[in-house]
């Protein structure tokens, strides 16, 4: 059997995760805060994101984080817990959350990196606590898998005959 799909956020977790991200944005002055899986899927995105292609950002950050994990291994470290990418006017701060997710904060040059770092650390700790709770699949019944597969399959046929 193939592995079960992974539930990355339940409906009742949404508010708590969004609260943590909103607090990070408010206290650090970041433009936005985005939580992604280490495979590059977006869990939650808050703040000003209209200028961003979030799917592309999540994919690229996950890829670069995975690459730096290999760099860490080469120098005898398990992983790097923080990545910082500095631009001319906008910067990206990335921190590891519980080894399975990444928290991205995008902020402008007018904000202080120390403040972003401090609140990103707090947010990552808060998110790690939330994400360590095992997920009972209470929402599972919302998705009727057999029906989903049938619709998806016919959509695939339709897309490639367009």
């Amino acid at each position: 059997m193939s592995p079960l799909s992974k539930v990355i956020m339940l409906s009742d977790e949404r508010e708590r995760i969004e609260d943590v991200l909103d607090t990070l944005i408010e206290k650090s002055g970041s433009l936005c805060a985005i939580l992604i899986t280490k495979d590059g899927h977006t869990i939650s995105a808050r703040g000003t994101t209209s200028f961003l292609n979030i799917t592309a950002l999540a994919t690229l950050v996950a890829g670069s984080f995975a690459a730096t994990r290999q760099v860490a291994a080469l120098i005898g470290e398990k992983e790097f817990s923080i990545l910082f990418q500095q631009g001319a006017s906008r910067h990206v701060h990335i921190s590891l959350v519980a080894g399975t997710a990444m928290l991205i904060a995008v902020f402008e040059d007018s904000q202080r990196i120390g403040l972003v770092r401090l609140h990103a650390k707090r947010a990552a700790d808060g998110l790690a606590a939330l994400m360590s709770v095992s997920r009972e699949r209470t929402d599972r019944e919302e998705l009727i898998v057999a029906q989903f597969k049938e619709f998806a399959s016919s959509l695939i046929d339709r897309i490639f005959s367009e």
Partner: protein
Amino acid sequence: MSTINFATREINFKIVYYGPGMSGKTTNLVYMYSRLTDDRKGQLITLDTEQERTLFFDFFPLELGEIQGFKTRFHLYTVPGQVYYEASRRIVLSGADGVVFVADSQASRRPDNVESLRGMLENMASYGLQPGPVPVVLQYNKRDMDGILTVEDLDADLRADSWPRFASVATQGAGVLDTVRTVMKEVLSRFE
């Protein structure tokens, strides 16, 4: 591994195109991208060298649409084929729900196909991904070239007895959509 986000109502799958250098993995993605309407695709990202060889990966999200209220999306990736990018190949395979192996049909590339497939299986195993539970689809590309192997030879080299396979000329689009359609359906059939 497919992911379900019940809060934002999204379901995502990951498909990776693997194979030796210059076998046509990026060409597959670019052709697909050109055939899809704008509402079906996100931005195509290519991370390549100055010589236009894939350095890390190519990627685009294929939007299937909304099913039972869930936005459903396939993330399509290629790996870099050049021998010295082994570490990058392994990274990209992480979490794959399905794999397409693009073989180069030219007889001169026979050892490269075999070596690349061996590496793919080894890299899959390092993540606990087993062919079968994770569907593998083979594509025998460049069927328009001179000096190509027979399909039987490629079958024998690449253990094709257990996997769906397609002949292709990716530069002209032949076989490209059949391949992706098949791997997507194989992935869906295993969705739980």
